[in-house]
């Protein structure tokens, strides 16, 4: 191993360790705090050590009906939003990247620009729209968990579409021409060729959509209020902070439990994410 390479490796490890410490400190602190009683948290002892470990925070949360409701709401919303997102953005990306039609390029850019508008700008007009909708139809959209199913895709669909356009564009044109000549229609080309070949991209988009909807805070905070309608991030904050009393142990426990599903999904799909499935399609 050359001297240069050895030093390069040392520096890489130095910075990797630095980043690891920087990013792992908060979750470690959450874990430590979640294992303490309220008394120990407020006591003037070393905050980085657990003297009397307890699982009481976990037991209390996991047996609390409201926490389970938040968890279920989050899970249902996220799964449906991810499904809706993929159902819309995959065919949309296919059409925008392959079926050249009038204005397709402009539309593709438009899709991306939509994503650039921050949600903090959108929740007030959306709120107003829901109110008007209520006046016209008598259907109440505020404080209904299922309204999130329509709101989240405004964030997930543009970005997922954009990712998929990129992946589809990297598939050689000859591949769909070969499929076309082999007798496949557009839909068959999409389902039998594009989706399997662009699977890493599809998974990337799925993970993205899931993370966005699972961690979404502002929209559910604005649009849902009753305990039975809340999703996890908002539920934890509203039920575990009472006035100026912060139930830190349970807040940390709830946050850790809430972070688990995305972590598990990342862990399982990482291999797919990295695998280069397109190798061998064409010369290479």
């Amino acid at each position, binding site marked *: 191993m050359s001297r240069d390479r050895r030093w390069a490796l040392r520096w890489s490890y130095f910075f990797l360790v630095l980043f690891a410490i920087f990013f792992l400190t908060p979750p470690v602190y959450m874990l430590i705090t979640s294992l303490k009683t309220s008394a120990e948290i407020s006591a003037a002892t070393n905050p980085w050590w657990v003297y009397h470990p307890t699982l009481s925070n976990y037991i209390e949360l996991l047996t609390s009906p409201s926490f389970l409701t938040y968890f279920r709401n989050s899970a249902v919303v996220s799964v449906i939003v991810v499904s809706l997102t993929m159902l819309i953005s995959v065919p949309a990306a296919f059409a925008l990247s392959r079926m050249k039609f009038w204005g397709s390029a402009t539309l593709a850019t438009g899709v991306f620009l939509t994503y650039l508008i921050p949600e903090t700008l959108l929740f007030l007009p959306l709120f107003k729209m829901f109110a008007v909708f209520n006046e016209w139809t008598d259907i109440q959209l505020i404080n209904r968990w299922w309204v999130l199913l329509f709101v989240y895709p405004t964030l997930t669909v543009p970005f997922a579409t954009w990712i998929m356009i990129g992946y589809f564009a990297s598939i*050689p044109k000859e*591949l769909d*021409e*070969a499929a076309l000549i*082999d007798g496949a229609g557009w839909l068959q080309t999409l389902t039998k060729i594009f989706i399997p070949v662009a699977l890493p991209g599809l998974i990337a988009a799925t993970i993205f959509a899931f993370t966005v909807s699972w961690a979404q805070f502002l929209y559910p905070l604005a649009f849902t209020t009753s305990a039975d309608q809340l999703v996890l991030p908002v539920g934890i904050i509203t039920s575990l902070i009472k006035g100026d009393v912060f139930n830190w142990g349970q807040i940390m426990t709830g946050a850790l439990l809430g972070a688990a599903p995305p972590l598990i999904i990342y862990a399982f799909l990482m291999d797919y994410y990295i695998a280069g499935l397109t190798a*061998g*399609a*064409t*010369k290479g």
Partner: protein
Amino acid sequence: MAEVKLRKIVKRYDEVEAVRGIDLDIADHEFVVLVGPSGCGKSTTLRMIAGLEDITDGEILIAGDVVNDVPPKDRDIAMVFQNYALYPHMTVFQNMSFGLRLKRYPKAEIKKRVDEAARILDIKELLDRKPKQLSGGQRQRVAMGRAIVRNPKVFLFDEPLSNLDAKLRVQMRTEIKKVHQQVRTTTVYVTHDQVEAMTLADRVVVMNQGNIEQVGTPHQLYHSPRTRFVAGFIGSPAMNFIPCEVEEVSGGLSIRLTNELSFPVPPARAAHYQNHGQNGKLLLGLRPEHITEAGHHLEPGEVPFEANLEVTEPMGMETLVYFPVNGTQVCGRVNPNAGARDGAPLRLAANLNNMHLIDEASGRVI
């Protein structure tokens, strides 16, 4: 199996006319090669036959039916692409059977056809592999297999050998010829490589700037090119074009290249040129193999002359010699033992029985 007819085919992209009203009849079982430099419209023509490009004007007929508005899948054609275009997530068997599975052929029939194609192409042991586990030559075979199993009316090849290295290209060329001899499917093959065109084709179509320059057997194109473009494109090294004048001398014609150098035209050719008025600038077209070292006795039509060689290129079985005539670099092919050396004079002989006279302005061979 079917014949393919092109009737005044035009392809226009916005301002650019890529194909300018070409006519071509391809007979049943025929192997036709479209050849020409890049941008000549050969690939566009092939893609129009495939249905991958819309036709701006004209008609394409396959087996007697106009297919202008028929989608590719209903034209009963199969195409082999330059970059193979294999489906990366499918095995070789799945790749080859994809078209048949889409058409819901019975399983036994699919297996029979794939096995037969695999036998022809000698890829039986590869059927369970994925494309990325195959070499370039193997991928090309699979791509051909995918075409063969469909048993289509027409095979279309779009520069299928361009991605292979030189040795493999020669091998696959023979392979393609063998396959065609077995399956006898009408084939349209596009290449920019004139050697491929000459070796594979029943008939070669030379294209240039969206037009067909000449259609003919490899022999016809080589020995009787109709234009300067065809004469220069077919054959390697390319034909020499030397500015010249035609003079009438006692009862015959003579080609004057420089003040010192003139060649008498053999009587048979002279009779042919006599009927054409020789106005304007003329070029003498002579292939390198018709300029060789002068032997002890010369055949009729062979004219000896002295040349000062600038460069010699020994190729093993022959040596290419380059020398200037009238400001043009001329190439000849001599025996490696003829004593050709850089910078040295050599006595050469031009065989005028194979000469061509070209009108420089029109580019037509007279």
